[in-house]
């Protein structure tokens, strides 16, 4: 049996992720929603109405469907691929193509690709076409079956960010299948963890999943570093940054001497624009002779406020000085923070038990 007595309530206008090991019935579940697989028993209600009540092709045309490798029609141009469902619904060719052009823009495809054929596109571009095709007739429901599994990690991250952006604009009811728990936590408003045999192991928002796994299976599936990953749900805005250990490249000797102290073993040197260059010990920094090549690397800065505590901690761990660099949206340094301070912020966040309402930021 692929799926056994599964009961799920999928919220409107949000992303529900079905995640689990292969063979857990997540794809089967998805395909039952558009009746590509008929359940042997039970019902599926859409807005309170049994999906069996309407003709199957009408149902399917009202649901966008995106699959791994996009499944594009290789014999049709990009614009005609996207216009498929509008054409099936009887739109005029002109109107369907206009709609397709609009969608290409929405999913970030250059309009010069319209007349190309699928073989001329990269995997990531094909997947964007797949998403555009699914959105073409503006369906309220979007079904996505491991849509980003076959592209490389960099492209995948781009597609995920794009999906979140599109979702914030369109507010579709999305059911998303993946075997990648990180993807589930990043995208899901609600995450359903399924186990082999099509049974539901846990159905919860991602932060709750990481905080309180229902059982050993879910805990195991979440992986070893769920504590670290949970930090994605805590914003970095509450961190108190220090500005004292930050000096500009053209700082004079007095300033450098004044900034160094027992608490501050290293100073962060910025360029004249305020962008970070690297760390140096106060005694090694000679006014007027600071060369970026001789400074210690500053790791990966986090954007104060919009990045999560996970990004801040990561920055501190990456830097040999143990301090993380906070920057603003433009990359200018707003302050630095030590591992100790980040540790305290994490303890405070845990104590407050907050974070449940915060979207994954890292």
């Amino acid at each position, binding site marked *: 049996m692929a799926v056994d007595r599964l009961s799920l309530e999928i919220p409107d206008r949000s992303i529900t992720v079905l995640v689990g090991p292969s063979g857990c019935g997540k794809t089967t579940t998805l395909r039952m929603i558009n009746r590509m697989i008929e359940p042997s028993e039970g019902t599926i209600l859409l807005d309170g109405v049994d999906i069996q009540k309407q003709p199957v*092709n009408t149902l*399917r045309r009202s649901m966008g469907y995106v*699959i791994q490798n996009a499944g*594009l029609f290789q014999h049709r141009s990009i614009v005609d691929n996207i216009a498929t*469902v509008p054409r099936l619904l009887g739109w005029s060719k002109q109107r369907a193509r206009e709609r397709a052009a609009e969608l290409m823009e929405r999913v970030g495809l250059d309009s010069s690709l319209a007349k190309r054929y699928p*073989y001329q596109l990269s995997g990531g571009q094909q997947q964007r076409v797949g998403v555009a095709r699914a959105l073409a007739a503006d369906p309220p429901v979007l079904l996505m079956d491991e849509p980003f599994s076959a592209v490389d990690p960099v492209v995948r991250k781009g597609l995920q960010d794009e999906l979140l952006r599109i979702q914030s604009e369109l507010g579709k009811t999305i059911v998303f299948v993946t075997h990648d728990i990180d993807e589930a936590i990043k995208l899901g408003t609600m995450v359903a963890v399924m186990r082999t045999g099509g049974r539901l192991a846990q159905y919860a928002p991602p932060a709750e999943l990481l905080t309180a796994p229902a059982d050993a299976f879910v805990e195991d599936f979440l992986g070893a570093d769920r504590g670290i990953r949970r930090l994605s749900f805590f914003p970095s805005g509450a961190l108190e940054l220090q500005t004292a250990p930050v000096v500009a490249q053209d700082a004079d000797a007095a300033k450098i001497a004044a900034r160094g102290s027992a608490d501050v073993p290293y100073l962060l040197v910025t360029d004249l624009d305020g962008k970070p260059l690297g760390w140096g010990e106060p005694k090694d920094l000679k006014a007027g002779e600071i060369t970026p090549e001789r400074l210690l690397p500053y790791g990966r800065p986090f954007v104060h406020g919009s990045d999560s505590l996970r990004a801040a901690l990561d920055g501190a761990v990456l830097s040999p000085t143990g301090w993380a660099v906070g920057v603003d949206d433009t990359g200018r340094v707003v302050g630095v923070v030590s591992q100790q301070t980040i540790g305290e912020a994490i303890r405070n966040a845990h104590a407050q038990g907050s974070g449940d309402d915060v979207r994954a930021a890292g």
Partner: protein
Amino acid sequence: MSGYFDIPSDLQHSYLGLIGLHLREALIPVLAGLLLSLPVAQLCVRFRWLYPPVLGVTTVLYAIPSLAFFVVLIDYTGQSETTVMIPLAVYSLVVLVPAIVDGVRSVPQETLDAATAMGFGPVRRYLQVQLPIAVPAIIAGLRVATVSSISLVSVGMLIGNQGALGNLLNDANIYHRPELAVTSVVTTAALAILADAALALVRVVLTPWMPRKGATR
């Protein structure tokens, strides 16, 4: 030079007339074979168990000598072009049925799933997705069937000069004009090559979506 194209009057056709006749006798059977193969192939795709026996039957039919066909058919269709064309149509099946089946089966499962999920019914899916994607395979089959049909027409000579250009072989023999045999063979070969090239061109025109040689994804 005139000896080559000076056609004996018993054939009742000019040189160009023979070419036209030859093409008609060769191409109509291929067309008929294609029209018959499409539904047969679709049945083989739909019911997988049907494919091996169908393949067996077409192979056995292909093994029947055309003379044997003529002996049976002549009672019904007489010494006519039809008698020549029926075996040719039957022979084309051995190439066309597998070509179409392979072509339709080569459509990726995810493409079919996508079509189904978007609300294509089975007929629309066949006509708008499977068949167009099978076009390269079908045309590859048509090229073989067409070339073979053009060369096989000549045998119609045996039933009262129904072999178009092939009739020249017989005339070369009875009138002691070997140049007529050369005309027959060279012209038939040229027709086959031209028909093949034409179909190759049709393929390119019909499938702008195929990767060109050397192009990469």
